[in-house]
């Protein structure tokens, strides 16, 4: 392994760009906070805090998807991801950072009683409302805060434990016995994370954080839909970083073969997302019960019509048609383009999921959204770059590394 560069050096350009993006974002954030966030107008407040909410939730969840990716491939005894596993590991270090932002925003929204965002915070309205009284055991401030704390805390903690274990693969060569033990410990920790992930991202967290904005409405598909959305964008984010690192001349052991498999994840989970999108939409459309169609009414027939169907084109038709061919999934340029498109598509999806319920009359996708987006992208680039530089890029004594080197699709 003499010719392999294990140490990532952060390029000056990356630093400039990330700090620039953070600067622009911070400006938008502060300007928005002053003019909208703390304004006396409730619409402005809802607009600002809603925008902040969908951004932080989106970025926390797609960075968390990286750790989920490591854990499921570990559980499946996968070897192919070892040559580039430090990239998803680095992305998953964002969970505590974005998680604390999400935590701060959500706790602020709940504690300052923003019942225009979470209608169930309004105690008088809940007392008069049979449906909301029925949900009160789940939708109340105390449970919300405890569960949010636990969710973010355990994602960070269990993810950190996975990453700590991964460090052992840098230390010393493993004989057969140590290797087997190492894999077993990996499996146990990955299983713990996956179980917690299923209890949170797979079910309760999207209900609490996003679905409860429409306090009366519910859909059993919602959490899976959110999961699919974040997982496919998470895979796209991994692909983007992978391609970036390849371009900079790192990741010598990772080739088109690995890109092909990452591309397959992007392709397959785009279709999985569509499956859930359709299952949720079709059942509600078919039954046509007012208490259920209330969610889709203004999205399909109102102001959000354009975004709603654009969403389907970007997140289903484009990946389906463009990523179907084998040669497309092996083409760095095309996968990079699709990754950006998919992340953008699911960002738009999150926009309509949250803002579609908060600001129903009009779509004002504008400077605030893109400003805060640049803030989050900047933070992501800055910290992921740092995390990549803090560790060797390849776990060179990992027992499965050879399997990854000779990986062939």
């Amino acid at each position, binding site marked *: 392994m003499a010719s392999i560069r294990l140490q990532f050096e952060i390029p000056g350009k990356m630093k400039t760009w990330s700090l620039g993006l953070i600067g622009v974002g911070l400006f938008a954030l502060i300007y928005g906070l002053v003019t909208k966030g703390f304004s006396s107008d409730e619409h402005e407040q809802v607009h600002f805090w809603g925008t902040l909410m969908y951004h932080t939730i989106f970025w926390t969840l797609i960075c968390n998807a990286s750790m989920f990716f490591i854990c499921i491939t570990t559980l499946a005894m996968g070897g192919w991801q070892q040559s580039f596993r430090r990239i998803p590991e680095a992305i998953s270090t964002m969970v505590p950072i974005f998680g604390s932002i999400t935590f701060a925003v959500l706790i602020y929204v709940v504690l300052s009683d923003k019942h225009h965002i979470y209608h169930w915070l309004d105690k008088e309205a809940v007392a008069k409302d049979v449906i909301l009284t029925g949900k009160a055991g789940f939708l109340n401030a105390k449970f919300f805060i405890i569960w949010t704390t636990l969710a973010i805390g355990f994602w960070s903690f269990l993810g950190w434990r996975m990453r700590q274990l991964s460090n052992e693969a840098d230390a010393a060569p493993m004989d057969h016995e140590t290797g087997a033990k190492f894999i077993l410990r990996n499996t146990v920790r990955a299983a713990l994370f996956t179980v917690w992930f299923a209890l949170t991202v797979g079910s309760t967290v999207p209900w609490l954080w996003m679905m409860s904005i429409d306090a009366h409405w519910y859909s059993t598909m919602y959490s899976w839909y959110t999961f699919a959305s974040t997982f496919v964008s998470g895979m796209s984010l991994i692909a983007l970083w992978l391609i970036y690192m390849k371009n900079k001349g790192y990741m010598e052991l990772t080739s088109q073969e690995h890109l092909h498999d990452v591309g397959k994840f992007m392709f397959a989970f785009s279709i999985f997302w569509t499956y859930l999108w*359709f299952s949720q939409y*079709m059942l509600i459309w*078919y039954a*046509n019960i007012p208490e259920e169609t209330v969610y889709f009414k203004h999205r399909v027939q109102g102001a959000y019509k354009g975004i709603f169907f654009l969403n389907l084109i970007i997140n289903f038709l484009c990946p389906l048609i463009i990523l179907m061919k084998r040669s497309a999934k092996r083409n760095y340029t095309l996968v990079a383009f699709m990754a950006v498109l998919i992340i953008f598509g699911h960002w738009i999806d999150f926009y309509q999921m949250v803002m579609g319920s908060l600001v129903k009359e009009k779509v004002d996708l504008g400077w605030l959204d893109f400003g805060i987006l640049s803030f989050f992208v900047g933070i992501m680039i800055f910290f992921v770059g740092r995390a990549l530089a803090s560790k060797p890029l390849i776990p060179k004594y990992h027992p499965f590394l050879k399997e990854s080197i000779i990986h062939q699709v």
Partner: protein
Amino acid sequence: MAKKKFVIGCFDDEAVLFPAVKKVRTAGYKIHDVYTPFAVHGLDHAMGLRETSLHTAGFIYGITGTTTALSCISWIFTKDWPLNIGGKPHFALPAWIPITFELTVLFAAVGMVLTFCYLCQLAPFVKKHHFHARSTDDLFVMVIECTDKTNTDDLQAFLTSGGAVETNVQVAEEGWWLGRYDQNEMPFETKEIVAA
């Protein structure tokens, strides 16, 4: 439907097979096929086989299924026999998507299985020559097609030097023919032998 002459080399190890395949190809011989007891990863690359077009066929079958479903249902429900179902519009696209999806999968799956069988020349009541019975058990059997100029003795010696544990020469039908596996004889016997 012509018989051809083949030289067969049997290998008992993958690690020997791969360099042998490479050697035989660089020496300019035409490999008819390599029969292995299990799928060997990367052997297709080593043999220089072109990528299969089975997936292209699958895509076309799938598209055919989609078109069939959508055109049939839309014609039936809007032109031929419009029904009021739950007050839905006659052109009720979301309700048709599951059927469309299923027909797409059905067409693609059945079509691909049949195409696969055709490409591999597999079918009921059809027989293909077996070059070596142990290719279904533990031997990797490389079959090389001979031309009139091929010196079979040289080729056998070449294969043995490349690590073959067993070599022989067979004159056999290369394609499939109507017949039964439990009957050894071909129903028709062509005396003509292309390569002497």
